[in-house]
């Protein structure tokens, strides 16, 4: 018998958790700081989101607990610490929301988020997530291939890359406010893929996880998930997708070019300058495990990089 997140977290528990949240919110109203801390801890009880499991995209490992996947996040828009996104996620307003898809295409269009949800049938895929910091999770995402959305705008032959832009709004993303010593990253956060990577069936335009609408701290209302690349490549809270002929500048590459390349494919044999990428710690496990080439998706994506020196194109 296989362990599934739906087995361990029945609906009734979600409901009771929601009540707990409500209680915590009430407490926060009177209790001040301590109460607010209490709100930060419980996992999000998001609206349920229906999706058909796609058995073709399903890693064999047990999914990470939702509690972990929604409280241990790198999302610098909320702050540089991993607990910041869960603590401050409520400042983001995922509705109303628009995604502008433009650049080198014949039918540029600005999609309302409700339209984005209906471009293709929602499917559930269980992907490995490998963070560049050498930890990993297994997450059941909900979405559809990004290719379905890109097809609607009809990319021109000149288009060779796709650039993703995350919302820039310091009111909703407190981490974007300049700090005492300047900002953490150059906002807005941008990421990019080669067009063939963006059109690859594994590249998922994602609107939910764990049977729910995407929690704010995980990149609501819409993000991409590219499971064979380090996590930071998977841009969150996307407001713009632009087709272009030039390799887009990416936020982390601008911040530390020698540490974060454009490709950033998971690769155990190419170390980060400050640590080894040969192993990873799966959240919830004690011993490190070996990191797999392309995060275990080599048979599906290795052909994208035939003839390329992946040590140079890190």
């Amino acid at each position, binding site marked *: 018998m296989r362990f599934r997140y739906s087995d361990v977290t029945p609906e009734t528990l979600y409901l009771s958790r929601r009540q707990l949240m409500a209680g915590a919110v009430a407490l926060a109203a009177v209790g001040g700081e301590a109460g607010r801390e209490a709100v930060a801890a419980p996992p999000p009880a998001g609206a349920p989101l229906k999706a058909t499991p796609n058995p073709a995209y399903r890693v064999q490992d047990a999914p990470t607990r939702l509690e*972990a996947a929604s409280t241990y996040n790198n999302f610098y828009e909320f702050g540089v610490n991993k*607990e910041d996104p869960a603590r401050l996620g409520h400042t983001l307003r995922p509705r109303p929301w628009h995604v502008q898809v433009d650049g080198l295409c014949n039918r540029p269009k600005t999609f309302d988020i409700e339209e984005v949800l209906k471009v293709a049938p929602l499917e559930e895929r269980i992907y490995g997530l490998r963070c560049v910091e050498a*930890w990993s999770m297994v997450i059941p995402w909900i979405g559809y291939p990004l290719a379905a959305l890109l097809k609607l705008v009809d990319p021109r032959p000149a288009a060779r890359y796709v650039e993703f832009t995350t919302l820039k709004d310091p009111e909703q993303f407190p981490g974007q406010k300049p700090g005492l010593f300047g900002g953490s990253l150059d906002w807005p956060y941008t990421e990019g893929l080669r067009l063939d990577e963006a059109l690859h069936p594994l590249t998922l335009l994602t609107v939910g996880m764990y049977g729910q609408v995407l929690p704010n701290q995980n990149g609501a209302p819409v993000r991409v998930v590219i499971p064979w690349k380090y996590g930071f490549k998977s841009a969150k809270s996307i407001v713009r997708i632009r087709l272009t002929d030039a390799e887009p500048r990416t936020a982390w590459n601008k911040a530390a070019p020698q540490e974060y390349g454009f490709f950033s494919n998971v690769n155990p044999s190419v170390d980060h300058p400050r*640590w080894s990428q040969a192993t990873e*710690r799966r959240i919830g496990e004690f011993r*490190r495990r070996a990191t797999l080439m392309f995060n275990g998706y080599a048979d599906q994506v290795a052909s994208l990089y035939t003839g390329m020196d992946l040590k140079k194109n890190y």
Partner: protein
Amino acid sequence: MTTRGRVALKVVVWAVVLAPLAALLYGFATDTLTVNPIEYVTRELGEATIRLLLATLALTPLRLLSGWSWPITLRRLLGLFAFFYAVLHFSVWIVLDHFFDWRTMGDDVLKRPWITVGVTALILLIPLAATSTTGMIKRLGGRAWRRLHRLVYVAAVLGCLHYIWLAKKVLIQPWVYAAVLAVLLGIRTWDLGRRLSQRWTMVGSRG
């Protein structure tokens, strides 16, 4: 300071230096060490080490600026606790993080400068901890002992470097520690300069 005052001071200091360890044990008991406990514990123990190292180095400047003599009575205690946390920090890295994977750890020490300087700092602290007893001070003689214990400055600089190097560049914390260290060493340098010039004047007036 009265005997009673000294006892009260020691009690407070012991409580403060044990607080980080107590917080971690409490976190372990209540399962609140984040979802990546090994990383969290490593980081907390590292923070405790550098804070105590800086606290140890703050005692002499405190005496110089205030004229009080009691800060010096805490130096050995704080220094040994800095060493204690450094050893815990290192042990967690070996046992929990890498589970005795010596080859990987050896690679890290050689290839990653921030680990190299961290390990070096710890090694430098070993002779200091070993010679911290009153018996050892006597055996070495005050002068040699003092000279040996100047290694703590090197260890502190390397410790700060270790933190700056490993942390994400957007974090301010490591730079704050480095700034504090710079101020503490600055006060010592100022004092040294003052004493040298006094000696010079004395020599001058004698001539």
